[in-house]
């Protein structure tokens, strides 16, 4: 257990008849970035609250940095940084007052607070705007400030609850990069919840897919990409007739077939090979010039797993 930053065992939380988290068992290794991916209402934020000891589980147990958040919530929180879906900033206070406040909360000395605030504000590109009230910052800037606030005490574990939610892709991408860079520099374990596949795909070492409070799949992004969805073939050539397409579509290993001018797109079922399909096309009279194999992206895997899970 020493190597685990988070361990949950059949963790369950119910709100009256609604089961928000359903027998969740997961392990997050120290020093990694773990992404919990799920649609809205799948229980992501509830899991974060349970792990921080802000909510008590209905059943099951959790260990965060070796501590039970239900019994030792204060000790858990003392070692964790948190960025919530909403930046949760004190809008009337300035950027530096927001950081100073949390520096005091974390018990940093006046010198320590000032130095750390400068370091983080510079990293997140907010140093020049430190005198402005937080409410005047753009949403992206506010989320950066929330990130800086969470990193202030050099936490061992950082919870990021949908940090790029509501941000347009042009703002989300640099935030993600900053985060990954900072995580590497400061050797912090990150537990990220997100609805955005791009977040999880780009920075997470492992991803858990959540649906209705249940973990339905887990693995490294590359492992998950191979799960449940097969190859996508792009066949360049000519002579692709409707009869030929119908013939190919009937094969067991073929998921779907789509034509474009001079191209045929074939989605193969999981664990299927391309050669028999290409052979069939050639034997049926198609002029095949090139066959390109596209690995499925995580988006297709995510959709496939969600659709396949009852």
């Amino acid at each position, binding site marked *: 257990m020493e190597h685990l930053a988070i361990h949950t065992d059949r963790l369950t939380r119910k709100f009256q008849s609604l089961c928000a988290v359903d027998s969740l068992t997961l392990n997050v290794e120290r020093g990694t970035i773990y992404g919990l991916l799920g649609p809205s209402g799948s229980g992501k934020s509830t899991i974060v609250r349970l792990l921080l000891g*802000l909510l008590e589980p209905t059943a099951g147990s959790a260990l965060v940095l070796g501590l039970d958040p239900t019994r030792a919530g*204060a000790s858990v*929180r003392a070692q964790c940084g*948190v960025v*919530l879906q909403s930046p949760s*900033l004190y809008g009337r*206070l300035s950027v530096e*007052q927001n950081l100073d406040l*949390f520096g005091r909360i974390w018990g940093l000395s006046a010198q320590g607070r000032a130095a750390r605030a400068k370091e983080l504000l510079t990293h997140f590109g907010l140093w020049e705007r430190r005198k402005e009230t937080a409410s005047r910052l753009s949403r992206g800037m506010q989320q950066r400030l929330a990130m800086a*606030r969470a990193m202030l005490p050099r936490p061992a574990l950082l919870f990021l609850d949908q940090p790029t939610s509501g941000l347009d892709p042009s703002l989300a991408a640099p935030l993600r990069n900053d985060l990954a860079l900072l995580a590497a520099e400061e050797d912090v374990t990150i537990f990220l919840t997100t609805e955005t596949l791009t977040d999880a795909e780009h920075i997470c070492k492992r991803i858990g897919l959540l649906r209705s409070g249940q973990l339905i799949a887990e693995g490294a992004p590359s492992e998950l990409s191979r799960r449940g969805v097969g190859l996508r073939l792009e066949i360049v050539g000519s002579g692709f007739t409707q009869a030929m397409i119908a013939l190919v579509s009937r094969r067991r290993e073929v998921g779907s077939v789509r034509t474009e001018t001079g191209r045929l797109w074939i989605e193969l079922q999981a664990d299927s090979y391309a050669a028999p399909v290409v052979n069939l096309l050639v034997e049926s009279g198609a002029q095949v010039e090139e066959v390109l194999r596209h690995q499925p992206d995580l988006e297709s895997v995510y959709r496939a797993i969600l659709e396949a899970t009852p």
Partner: protein
Amino acid sequence: MNRRFWRDVWTVLRKEWLEWLATPGCLIQPLAVILIFGVLAPVAAGRLWIDQPIIQWLWSWLPLALSAGMVADTFAGERERDTLEALLASRLPDRAIVLGKVAAVAAYGWIVTLACWVTGWAAVLVALDATLPNPSFVLAWLLLLSFLASCFIACLGVFISLRAQSVRQAQQLMSVAMLVSLLLLGLLATELVTTGTGEQTGQVLTVVALILIVLDFILLAGLLIRPQRSEWLIY
């Protein structure tokens, strides 16, 4: 409750005041109260202000009117602005958060009340060209009663704000609490006017102080004994 705990209480208190001071127009209310109750009303009372300490003791109830708005904001306001969860997710102990918010509201009510009393005396002395009589008896009771009243309204307000779904609901509940308190104030004033300023006055004031101490103790105990952080976030 070690030194670090009290430093946490101070951090929360300081945060509440910083936020309040950063609100546009935040000084209008206390300045208006000081102008009305600390200048105009004492000058209008004239010699009665000097001869009848009852009027000054009734000023002890000023925190009630002063703190209602601020106290409704403590938890319900933070919840509405989405800042409460960040505070709860920090390392601050539950009791330090509660006590810091109670202390911030109580200090505000107490300070403005005392400011009203000081400016009241100054205004009366200037207006009447009088000299200051020995204020120790009046001041001692005013200090005690206004402190207890400030704590009472702060504890009650935080208690309500913790459980209210919104700032509006907290303010509505606070206004009901204020009406009840004003009724009690009326009864107290009647009692004091009846007894005059003799020996019985001390007894009446002692009873009032004791009632406030008991109420403060009960409310504070209700807030601090086994606070449930998980219940502060309403889903």
